[in-house]
């Protein structure tokens, strides 16, 4: 890799890692279910960015782009189901607090 490529890789790569850390924090801190889903979304965004940087760095940008289009579709389906489940929980318990749904113990 030449120096310009390395600097681009490091810039975007470190931003992806930063997003990853924010996402993990968002899932772990607090008890709101929607907040956990936002954390998952942030993690997926971090991975998307990482994947496109990986495609750029390895010189297979078109492969990475086609993968990401597929991935975005799947992610949207997944998060729609997740929100549906959260709405179901809200209808049953009247709150979005994860502490109210501890009937099952690991």
């Amino acid at each position: 890799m030449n120096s310009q490529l390395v600097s681009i890789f490091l810039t975007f790569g470190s931003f992806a890692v930063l997003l990853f850390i924010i996402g993990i924090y968002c899932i772990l801190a607090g008890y709101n279910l929607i907040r956990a889903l936002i954390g998952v979304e942030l993690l997926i965004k971090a991975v998307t960015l990482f994947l496109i940087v990986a495609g750029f760095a390895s010189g297979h940008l078109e492969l990475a782009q086609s993968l990401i289009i597929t991935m975005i579709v799947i992610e949207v389906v997944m998060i729609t189901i997740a929100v549906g489940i959260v709405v179901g929980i809200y209808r049953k318990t009247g709150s979005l607090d994860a502490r109210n749904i501890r009937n099952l113990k690991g």
Partner: protein
Amino acid sequence: MCLALILIPFFSIIILNLPPREVNKRIAFGLVLILTLGQMFLVFFPGCNFWKMNSGVFGSMLKIDLLVDNLTLIMLFCIGLIVLVTLFTSRQFIGPIEKQRNFINLLLVVLIGMNGTVLARDIFSLYVFLEITAVASFILISFDKELLGLEGAFKYLLLSAIATILMLSSIALLLILTGSTGFSEVQAVLKTLNPNNPLLILAVGLFLAALFIKSGLIPFHGWLPDAYSSAPASVSVLLAGIVTKVAGVYALIRIMVSVLGFSPASQAVLLLIGAVSIVLGALLSLTQSDFKRMLAYSSISQVGYIILGLGSGTALGIVGAVFHIFNHCVFKSLLFINSAAIEKQTGIRDMDKLSGLAQKMPVTGLSSLLASLSAAGIPPLAGFWSKLIIIIALWSAGYYTYAVIGILAGILTLAYFLSLQRRVFFGKLTREFINVKEASFSLVFPMVLLSVIIIGVGVFTPVLLDKFILGLGNILGG
């Protein structure tokens, strides 16, 4: 042509949802029956044109590379069998015909996802099909819209999303290292790399962690007992029988054998996680009183054996692992059908409140005894042979400690299954259960079918061994 295993269920879903919907409701059951029976039938003819690669018009339109070898064939058989059994079980538990049609649609989505997972020849396609399977299972777990089901589904969803993210990070790292996502291309480049490359170690670690979460191994097992025990009865059969086996364990075997290859470090991790899961899973299931939760923990313990077989890294170990997947599919779905029958007939799942049911439910009692003994590895039932192969493989590869752990944990397995039998089926029949009847045909038929498979495979293993089972080992070389 084997693309048809994905496309025919796909078009079936479209047809089932077209008008006239009144007619389609009635053909739904028969359609899935024919699909699964056809899939199981084709597996017995591995030489026929169906499994050839040239996929004709569809193959040129859809760029999905598919792969057929012995491991794929045996998994396709398991998928067909368990989906068939689930279909029969669902007739008892999924109420009105409108809901049954929804259930069958979702069952077909799971079928597409699992067939695709076992046929995929590319890491990214593997991810896509794993997600299709997972998303359909989230809906199935919360199918009754009960709070417990929703909670189990949410836990599964959150951990599954994290597993997906780890897997995608690993795919990105492999893309940097090899510039490709196909199994054979990645494997070819990885063989030339230095095994101490930090990026490679990170990629392997992330992929293994993702698949450990998906297969629910200790210490990543948090979602598994909740999801199994909160799901509707017929969905538990599907989940425990095949979904987590395909999504976690099959994917793990495929990735280790066909992509990443074994290294001393990854073998050590597999062996350690396998042994911990066997012992802790068995100990935890001893303490449970809920029928389905006990079965869920025993599932963790049995998956531990599969991982232990894989961790030996030899062809014999992988043969044992795959054979144990097959046996596990059969006996664990049989046990979940037994629990479903008991829940249906008595309304109780707490094992301490049940007793003496073997007198009133002879088929359920006998088949659950067979399944328990097969799981505990009592000869000549099927489970004995697969455990024997795994332990021989471990011993001959020089992992004496793990082989001994495997043998000793068999005693724990026997302990919790006999405790189950004693509490639920033996003992005195209390007055409460004097009017309990045997379950109806749609539950008895799958029980009998699976019991026959357990006995048949067990008795004929010495005959089958040379012909079919040892042939599995060639996936390592190929």
